[in-house]
């Protein structure tokens, strides 16, 4: 599904050129759940952004479903994202002036889905927020907000879901329920999952785990058998 070849990302700062990613090679199979782990500042988010087509590498190629997205224009990548990609973020990114239902239905409406509201209701039901349709983000707890974000991500039925520390802002117990929900939905929808996380337990629920350190891919291992999902 995703194939990255010799990815390098360099940025120019006041102290000179900084290499954030160094010769990364990675493939993610269809339906696979991949965890990217590593210490803070190791380049996890940067890699995720490049794989999702939000950013471009300084060198190297990323193919999504066989198409070279690094060669595309920004508009081309936008179209690719619209076709394949969904996101879950650490800080939820719900729009404060929209209700939970509207937050979920907005991406559907933007792509012209006639049943946007119906679909959104369905997904909010599935994350257990039936009673909170018309609540605004500020009226929801952090865990509830992230559930809305999950519903929003899955509602547009992406082929690939990118999640950047989805439970980073939540306490352990709440984080656990969100994770359960994430993997449950992922299984039911058959989505390919690329997940950045700090937590070993979360990483261990994925099929595969890659480790970044200082921009280098230093480990690529299958998770312990029996644990995925």
């Amino acid at each position, binding site marked *: 599904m995703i194939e990255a070849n010799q990815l390098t990302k360099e940025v120019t700062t006041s102290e000179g050129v900084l290499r954030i990613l160094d010769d990364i090679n990675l493939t993610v199979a269809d339906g696979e759940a991949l965890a990217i782990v590593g210490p803070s500042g190791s380049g996890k*988010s940067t890699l*995720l*952004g490049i794989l*999702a087509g*939000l*950013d471009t590498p300084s060198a190297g190629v990323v193919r999504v479903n066989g198409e070279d997205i690094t060669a595309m224009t*920004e*508009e081309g990548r*936008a*179209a*690719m*994202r*619209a*076709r394949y*990609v969904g*996101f879950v*973020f650490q800080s939820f*990114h719900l*729009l*404060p*002036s*929209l209700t939970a239902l*509207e937050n979920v239905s907005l*991406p559907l*409406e*933007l792509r012209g889905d006639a049943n946007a509201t119906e679909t959104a209701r369905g997904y909010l039901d599935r994350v257990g927020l039936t009673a909170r349709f018309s609540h605004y983000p500020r009226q929801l707890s952090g865990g509830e907000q992230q559930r809305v974000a999950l519903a929003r991500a899955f509602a*547009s039925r992406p082929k690939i879901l990118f999640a*950047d520390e989805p439970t980073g802002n939540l306490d352990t117990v709440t984080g656990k329920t969100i994770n359960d929900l994430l993997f449950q939905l992922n299984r039911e929808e058959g989505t390919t999952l690329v997940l950045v996380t700090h937590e070993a337990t979360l990483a261990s629920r994925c099929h595969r785990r890659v480790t970044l350190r200082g921009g280098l891919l230093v480990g690529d291992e299958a998770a312990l058998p029996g644990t995925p999902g």
Partner: protein
Amino acid sequence: MMAWKLLWRSWRGGQLALIFWSLVMAVVVVTAVALLADRVEKALVKESSHLLAADAQVRTSRAIPDDWLQRADDGGLKTVQMALFASMVYSGDNNHLAAVKAVQSGYPLRGLLTLAERPFVTTPEFFESVNHGPPAGEVWVDSRLLPILKMELGESLDVGEVTLRVSKVIVEEPDRGGSFSLFGARVLMNWQDLAASGVVQPGSRIDYRLLLAGEDSDLANYLAWLEPQLNSHDRLLSPDEAQAGIADTLVQGRRFLILAGSLGVVLAGIALALASRHYAAGQTAAVALLKSWGVSARRVRLLYWQQTFWLALVGSLLGLAIGWLVHESLVFLVRELLPVNLPQAGWRPWLVGLATGMLCLVGFALPALWHLPSLSPLAVLRRDVPVHPVSAMKRLVIGLLVIVLMLLWYSQSVALTLAILAGLAVTALAVMGPGWLLLNLARRLGNRAGSVWRLALANLWRRRGQTLVLLTGFAAAMAILMTLVMVRTTLMEQWRWQLAEDAPNHFLVNVAPHELDGVEHLLADNQLSSVGWYAMVRGRITLIDGQPPSDELVEQNNALRRELNLSWTDQLPEGNRVEEGLWWEGLDNFAERHGENVAPVSIEEDLASEIGVTLGSRLTFSVGGLTFDGVITSIRSLNWDTMTPNFYVLFPDGYLEKYPRIFMTSLYLPPEQKPFVNTLLSQYPTVLVIELDMVIERIRSMVTQVTHGLELMTLLILGCGVLVMLAAVKLSMAERLQESAILRTLGSTAQRILMVQSVEFGAQGALAGLLAAVGAELALFLLQRRMFEAPFGLHVELWLWGPLIGALLIGVLGVLYTRRAVNRPPLQVLGNLDI
């Protein structure tokens, strides 16, 4: 569709309110001003054509040549001939020297004649308006002719050799002119009866007039043909000319309205720009999110443009509606100054209002939103993705450009635009300079004060850019408002009190020598006393230093067009002062130097400078067809407050003896004796009574109305200022939230933080009020000097109320608006900074 949905949701979330209302305000101010200006302009133009009862008028002392009429007819113009002359009219044993006007039945070509079937009625329900003259065999007359001739409506009147029936009285004649007619009562007769009357004889003095009306181009063609054929005794009155005075008023009024309007627009524009910046900052997250979902930059741009367009359109339409209401209120406030039937406005004011909304959008809102579509979607992953808004400099230039464009369009004049821009710049500088100094001073003082004051004043200093912009808006609006209120109250009172309690309040003019004793007796019988009789002769200045005055000079000075009251005295009258030259007794050998027939002349200083004469200038006077010369020997100033008759031109005793004289006096009539005026007029109908008490009341009510109107405009501007303040506070809200959160985690109570906020806003308001007081005091000083000629005194109340009201207004508004920031739990604020 999508744009509407997004717009509605943002609106519901409250992010758009300030943008919306700023835009509405800009449109309201401009629409109200434009509607008012348009309607008044139309009314004045209409009225000025009424002044001629036509689109153009030719005045001549010969009968109108046939080819003039023929040519006008061929050129598609409507014509009416009139003849004006003084003639004795008789009814039974009584007679009167009437001002007769014979008109063809098409008279008046423009405007209407107002008639009544009963003499002396004043209630409009008895009035009847017609656009034709009297039919042959009938006359319409001034009400006062009936008591003069002791006759009733329906009886007959002899004009020369023809007998005509008096069928109606004239209430208003479009081309009568505003001034009092000192001569006979009007008799309006039909042109067909003119020949039969036998009045038109060789040598008789008749003033012929040709009224013309038609399409502008036809008229222009005709006048171009006619003008070369006119001789020096003929006079062509075109609408332009009739409008000369009106045009002046119009230009002044328009200037003020445009200035007020642009001040409002500039403030609203600033508010709009600040609010848009705040809105854009709040949209960065949303845009990054949209883009992460694969919405293209083009689509993002389209979505935001559509939203802002619809917002601006709805806002402009609402602005038009509210602007209409405001203009109706303005019309109501100044109703007595305006014609009763104000014409409806054309389409232009609406277009101006709508365009203002759209231009404000382009000039102030779009630049702040411009960068949104190019935001990187990466912002969803990383907080520190740089945002590249259009630079402040570019936004400033765009904003200024749009303002200049709008001004050019409103004023249609480069000079006026520049003047207004200069005015705005000077105001800004005049406020910002002292404002900056005061802020600096306050900060230093604050350093020694308690911590609440120190924090508050330091905050003001830190945000001084914003503070100064606010100060300018508020101080300017408050200064205008304070000046207006003071003019309406204190200044008017002062002016009234300058007149002594029992100063003469009525003038009796045009008393003939044979009526003098009778009027004296009537006064005595009613326990009234006049200030004594002043004899005068009516004459005009025909030559200055042997030359006829230039057309331009005649155009500008009533004194050269009308007959003046010429009087004589040996004593310098009370309240007169010789400013230049010498009074009669100081003149040596005048007769030897200038000849027996030349008179010494003392002239009033303003008149002298208006017609451009000095000591030694030679004036030629024409009185009743005779002429004589005078040389200016002194220039006087007058004190009008004494309310005794004053004369612009005085001669020594003896020079005017051979001319027919009339008398005038002034007297104090207590209010309860007001009916005396009617008694006097019914016995002496030719006497003209000028009711000064009415004139004073009228001036007072006019000033009051004008200031009320201006106050409403200024309140609108103040409203724009409040919007700027709200927008500025909103923009600094994130900063304020964080400050207050930090202060609270450091252990400050909410109470204390609220105190700091109140002091910050209150001090800002007090500063604005103080600066406004200075401005208002300055304006009052100039007004008192120039217009009311009153001595100057400080207005302590301004210095008290100005800062107090400013502090209250801005303090309360500011605290209300930021209270939320203080009351929010600190954790929530520090954890999540997007508001």
